[in-house]
Every structure is written in C-alpha cells, then in structure tokens.
C-alpha cells in the first residue's frame, strides 16, 4: 500500500527528516510557485529547478524507484493535457541549445515544459511527505494556524486509513474469491454498493466505539493541543539555501 510505504520512508532518520515540518511545507509551496511561474515555453529552467528536489530525495534517503513509480502513477491527466497542446500550436519554433539548433512545434515545447514542471514539483511534494512524519506535518499545520478541527480531522483520517484500507482489502479478497465470472453492469454496481455499505456499517461501529473511548477519557468536544515544535539552526540553513537557489534560478530565467 502506498500510504504505508510513505509512512515508512517518513519514519527514517536523515538531515532532511530532522528539519521542522513548517520549514519544509512553506519551502515546498514557495518552490512550486517559482517553478510554475517559469515561462510556459521554457525547458532549460524547469530542468535546473530539478536540482533541489533531487538533493532532498537523495539526502532524505528516498529511493528513486519509488519516486518514478509514483510519478508515473499520477501523471496520466497531465500527460493527456500536455499532449493536447500539440494540436493547437504546430508552428515551428527555432530552439537553440548550446551548439544544437533545431525547430520544433511550439505546442511540443509547451507540452514538454508542462511535463517537466510537473515532474519537478511532484518530486518536491514527494520529498516533503516522504521525509516528514505525518504527525509532524499535522503539528506544523497546527502551528501555522490551520483550524484545530481540521488538523484533528486529518489526524483521525490518517490513523483510520490504515485500519479501513485493510478492511476493504479483506472484503475485496472475499469478492474475488467468490466472483468467478463477469456480472452485468447493474449487478456489479449493486455488489459494489453492498460492499461499500458493509464497509460503511463497520466504519460506523468503529466510530461509535471511538466515541466511547473518547468520552471515557473526559473529552467533551473542546479540542486541546500541545505545542512541541521548534525551529533549529538546520531550518535556517535550509531556508537560506533555498532562497539563494531560487534567486540564482530567477537570475538564470532573466538571462535566458
């Protein structure tokens, strides 16, 4: 399961893992903003941006096989839209790349730019979640003044994800074991509806038990929170490096 894998990667130890979640979160947002604001027909600049997520992934001990598999998995929608650019701009555009000169369709350039930017920003996002434990991320969100209710909700969701996904897996195995042929569409949807309904029923029972356990521990609907976050010198170094990196690439963008 993907979430379990992310969870495991995030539980490792490395210089990147030890950074404050807020630093990484805001850094990722800033970085993404810079990447997508690069000109829509530029290829070279987005490629240069890849250096940063590359560094994060290497230092954060995230395997590249994992990153590539994930990128492939989430890319179809963007790939289709990027490719559609080919139909709308077939004008030849001269491209100069050092000693090489050639002409390509403008649409190809734009599409390629979208795909490269996608790869770069997604690697950065993977670099964020694969090096930050989810509860640290939640604590970071809380410290960034995201409403408590929402942070609590995210925490619950993540915690029960592991339980219910397993349950769904068992139900799916049971269906596989008994379903020997393709049923009609109506039947299939009915079966799916029943399975989801059964899942829903057991989820509601779980929620009921959780309620008991919360109330038995004195919970009355008011959400309390503890602060356990602290910026360190590593965060300052990281932020400083990121700002310099972005400034350099901004200069490069201007120069090209």
């Amino acid at each position, binding site marked *: 399961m993907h979430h379990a894998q992310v969870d495991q990667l995030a539980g490792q130890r490395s210089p990147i893992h030890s950074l404050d979640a807020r630093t990484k979160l805001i850094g990722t947002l800033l970085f993404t903003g810079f990447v997508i604001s690069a000109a829509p027909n530029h290829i070279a600049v987005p490629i240069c941006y890849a250096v940063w997520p590359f560094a994060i992934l290497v230092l954060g001990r995230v395997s590249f096989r994992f990153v590539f598999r994930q990128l492939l998995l989430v890319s179809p929608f963007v790939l289709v839209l990027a490719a559609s650019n080919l139909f709308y701009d077939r004008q030849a555009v001269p491209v100069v790349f050092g000693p090489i000169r050639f002409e390509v369709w403008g649409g190809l350039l734009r599409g390629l730019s979208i795909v490269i930017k996608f790869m770069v920003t997604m690697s950065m996002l993977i670099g964020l979640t694969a090096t930050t434990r989810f509860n640290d991320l939640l604590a970071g969100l809380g410290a960034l003044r995201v409403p408590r209710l929402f942070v609590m909700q995210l925490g619950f969701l*993540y*915690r029960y994800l592991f339980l219910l996904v397993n349950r769904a897996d068992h139900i799916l195995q049971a269906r596989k074991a008994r379903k020997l042929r393709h049923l009609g569409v109506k039947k299939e949807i009915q079966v799916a509806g029943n399975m989801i309904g059964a899942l829903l029923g057991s989820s509601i029972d779980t929620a009921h*038990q959780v309620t008991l*356990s919360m*109330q*038995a521990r*004195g919970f009355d609907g008011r959400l*309390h929170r503890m602060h356990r976050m602290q910026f360190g010198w590593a965060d300052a170094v990281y932020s400083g490096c990121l700002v310099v990196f972005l400034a350099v690439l901004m200069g490069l963008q201007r120069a090209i």
Partner: protein
Amino acid sequence: MSAAIDIKQYSYHYANGVEALCDIDLTIKHGQKVALIGPNGAGKSTLLLAMNMFIEGSGQIFVDGLELNRCNIHSIRKVMGFVVQDPEEQLFMPTVFDDVAFGPLNLELDQEEIIRRVKDTLKRVGLEGMEDRAPYHLSAGQKRAAAIATVLSMKPKIIIMDEPDTSLDPRSRNRLIELLSGLSQTLIIATCNMDFAARLCDHVILVDQGRVVVQGAAEKILSDGELMDKHGLEVPFRSRYSAGNRPIRPSLP
C-alpha cells in the same frame, strides 16, 4: 469507606424491548480485581457500558460513593477509566504520545505535568521510548499496553476493561497479566477466558442472560465444574491440571 462500585436493582432494556440487564445487585470493594465472566451475549459489555453511563437504565449505580447521573458523569469518568475491547478503537490519535496525553489534556493539566505523566505511564507499561510511534506500528501486545496506558495516565481509581485478552498470543497474555496484577487500582475485567480470569482475579461475578448468577471468591466459583458447564463456560485450564492429573505432553519427534 464506600465501595468502589455499588449497583442496586439496575435494569436496562434495549429500544426494541429486549431485556439486556435485569435486577443487577453487586458490590465491588476498592483494590479488588474482579472478573466479569459469562457466555457471549450474557450482558457483560452492557454492564460495563452501564457503569460508565454510556447507557441509562433504571436503578442506582454508585461509583466511589457518588451516584451516577448526568451532572457528575464528567467527574466520575475522572475516577473511572474505561478501556474498550479493540485497541484500534482505543488508540485513535496519530502517535502513542498523543493518545496517552489525550486524557490528561482533557483534565486540563499543565504541559509539564502531562509530559511527565505520559513518560511515567509509558515506562510503567513497558513502552518506554515509543512515544512517537504510530499505533499501527505496534504489535498486538504493545497496542494492548498502550491502550491501558491511555487510561492509566489519567490516574483513575477504578479501571474497567472489556475483554483485554482477545487476540493475544500466550507470551503477550502473560505480560498483560503481569502488568495488570501489578496495578493498585480496582480492576473490573469482562472476559470469556477462564484461565485469564483465574490467574489475574481474586473475585468473580458470573453473569448470564442479563442477571448476576453468582459472585464470590474466584477459586470457589471457577473450580465448580457443574456451574461452569451450565453457563457454557469451563473450568480454567491450569486448575484442571493442578487438581491432580499431570498434563500429557506429546513427545517431540
């Protein structure tokens, strides 16, 4: 001194009219370790829910001398900890630390005190250094220990547990018994495992069909083979052999 729990003439009906508990009368003294035994569907869990006022029936329940009612339920829940059957449902926070701190946070203690309590409690249940673990990364035995820690950190006088011994292997079960017998709190444990009851508890309440059949010293009730059979239970494994016959061990090839 008042009893830990005193139940007088308590009855409860489900919404569809079926009688779940009928004329329950029982007294549990402070410091006792009580096993609530009975077959499936006897009303053990319902009785536990009633003690925590998650259901409301007729009759009176006194906890530590206070009568349960809607006004004092919050102060009574501070005295009485409740551990639900499935640790997955007891441990609902992202980390063990957050879970163990959940109760103390609701008691509105200050931060240092909470951190100290969490550390102490985790040490007590043998989960030292596991603060930052997520509950789904714990073993079944560790989950059980963490579930108990979530209640212990509130420093209750009475702890109520619903079948804490389910889905544990013998080693984890031994550890659990060791942990629980070391606690000074009054323990009320619903269980179908007679061996577990015999090893941990000094007092037994036998419940069947919503009624208290008998209550008394564990040794006496649990060794009564006829009574046990009648209510679909069994004489504990260990005491069966201690009655004279030695266990026959299959010889290993």
